[in-house]
């Protein structure tokens, strides 16, 4: 496969990147889930990562957040080498993520889930004192709940929510605090058409300085909310480009239609 770094022109100011991966690989036993991935994303840039199941997209996210450490390679976040940082250190620097399989606190209410997320990126994580009623974090949590259209169920236990609502809550958790860069792992999977509309609206109305990478099988969603696309296959990046270029690329069309995914 030919690596055509057509976006390289956009990324000349390499030191000013939000996210930069150099030669990142991750092995699971003999399986190379990621091989020699080099990628850079500018601050505020919005990019889609496309590829069939098992292409290594989620593994890429896990390496960036520190959920897994890469077998080799370097990861920089806003210029800082975070390769060996534990996840919470990366999160505190403004990185956020959502999980492909919702990872929430089922025994807590919606608001309390978001409250925890706001706490995690604030000081006083160890506070022994209960918050006051007019606590700023409590307000922040409530307005995030509003932002993802969950106000009506804000006091319900998360375990009782519908699937689509849980996916929306995943997004709220990733928006807590002051995110600078967000990784969305298949946020639209399993959502109804209306819920997809809501998702697109949430993504497009994010403040311009917040960049993100979105993994999304649904081209209709993905290509409407990004300005650049990275194609992955078998743990490698094989193409990068603008949505229009990618859509009309014969190689991509062949792989995507032949790869079992629409």
């Amino acid at each position, binding site marked *: 496969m030919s690596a055509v770094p057509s976006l390289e022109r956009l990324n000349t100011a390499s030191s000013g990147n939000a996210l930069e991966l150099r030669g990142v690989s991750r092995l699971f036993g003999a399986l190379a889930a990621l091989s020699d991935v080099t990628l850079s994303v500018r601050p505020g840039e919005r990019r889609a990562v496309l590829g069939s199941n098992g292409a290594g997209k989620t593994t890429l996210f896990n390496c960036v957040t520190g959920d897994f450490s890469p077998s080799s390679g370097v990861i920089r976040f806003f210029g800082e080498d975070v390769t060996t940082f534990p996840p919470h250190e990366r999160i505190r620097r403004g990185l956020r993520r959502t999980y492909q399989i*919702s990872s929430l606190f089922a025994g807590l209410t919606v608001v309390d889930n978001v409250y925890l997320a706001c706490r995690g990126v604030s000081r006083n994580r160890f506070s022994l004192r*209960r918050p006051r009623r007019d606590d700023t974090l409590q307000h922040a949590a409530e307005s995030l709940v509003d932002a993802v259209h969950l106000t009506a169920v804000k006091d319900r236990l998360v375990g009782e929510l519908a699937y689509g609502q849980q996916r929306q809550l995943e997004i709220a958790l990733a928006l807590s605090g002051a995110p600078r860069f967000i990784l969305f792992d298949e946020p639209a999977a399993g959502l109804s058409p209306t819920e997809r509309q809501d998702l697109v609206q949430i993504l497009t109305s994010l403040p311009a300085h917040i960049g993100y990478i979105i993994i999304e099988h649904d081209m209709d969603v993905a290509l409407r909310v990004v300005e650049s696309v990275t194609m992955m296959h078998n743990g490698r990046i094989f193409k990068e480009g603008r949505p229009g270029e990618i859509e009309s690329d014969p190689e991509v069309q062949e792989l995507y239609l032949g790869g079992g995914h629409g």
Partner: protein
Amino acid sequence: MALAEPRLAIATPRPREGLSEVIARQGTAFWIVAALLLVMPLLANPFWLVQILAYAMILGMIALSLMFLAGYGGIVSLIQMTVAAFAAYLVAIFGDSAITQISLKWPWWTAVPVAILLATVFGTLGGALSVRTEGIYTIMITLAIGSAFYYLTLQNYTIFNGFSGFNGVLPPAFLGIDWGSTVPFYYLTLGCAALAYAVVVYVSRAPFGLALQGTRDNPRRMAALGFDVVAHRIAAYAFAAVIAAFAGVLLVWYQRQVSPGTGGVGPVVDMLIIAVVGGLSRPIGPFIGALVYVLLRTFSLDLLDWVGFEGKRYQLLIGLGFLVIVLFSPDGLIGIWQRLRDRYRKSRETQAAQMRVGGGSP
């Protein structure tokens, strides 16, 4: 959908309430128990006040520190009894005892804070050692630390006075009160136990406790929210150690002596049994477990004699009780109580509904 399956529902963060709101929220059972405990010196003889109730409250505090870690943090640590025993030793070493060649005879108001501080440091370090393990491995490591401490106290004569330990460790007298006499000691213990209970209830719904429960249910997500899971767990060990250390001070004043057996493997495991039998889901559980334990321990002699067994086998009775409770209610006595109450409420509701139906039909 792989939601984190909560073993226990997380207590929701409650905003700071006024004292009147907190008081208004308590049920009748709480007030009956509180009132009974307060007027107990009028009702009970000295034996019941000290040997049963005060002792149960001291053991309950140690088990409470275990419950805090296990119930809210998902950390089964057996180190809590050792922390208490260490604090007990330090009170004897820094303060006064019959072993005059070792005890430093500091006044109690220096000896006790230093003992609590050092025991807390010990509990925190023990936590830091075992924090990266889970489940059975945490039990093993903390048990190993406990055994090491037991053999240290047994074999070291220069500091711990070996096999015989320290006797003649008396509670202090201040404010014109001899805190070693029956009624003051009862109230001292009641005050400490009530404070420990209240603090655990409060903290469980403060950000620290809430996040601890988050690390129990979904540690990976907590890290992805910016929480340092390891640091949070170590802090939980420190918090639990403070409670265990206070209990250790009360324990040495209650027994007036401390020896290697205080922190032996027997008491270490007993503490786990007390917490599990009482119930790990609520801070009141350990106190109930401790009361049952002390009652069994005290009266099993008569009970076993009565059914024709050797009386000294109270451990057998405790073991059997443990088995029965764990088999029938994984959530301990608290769980049984809650189920009974729910059933009672439900039956009352259906009764009320039937009455409405019956009353409505001619």
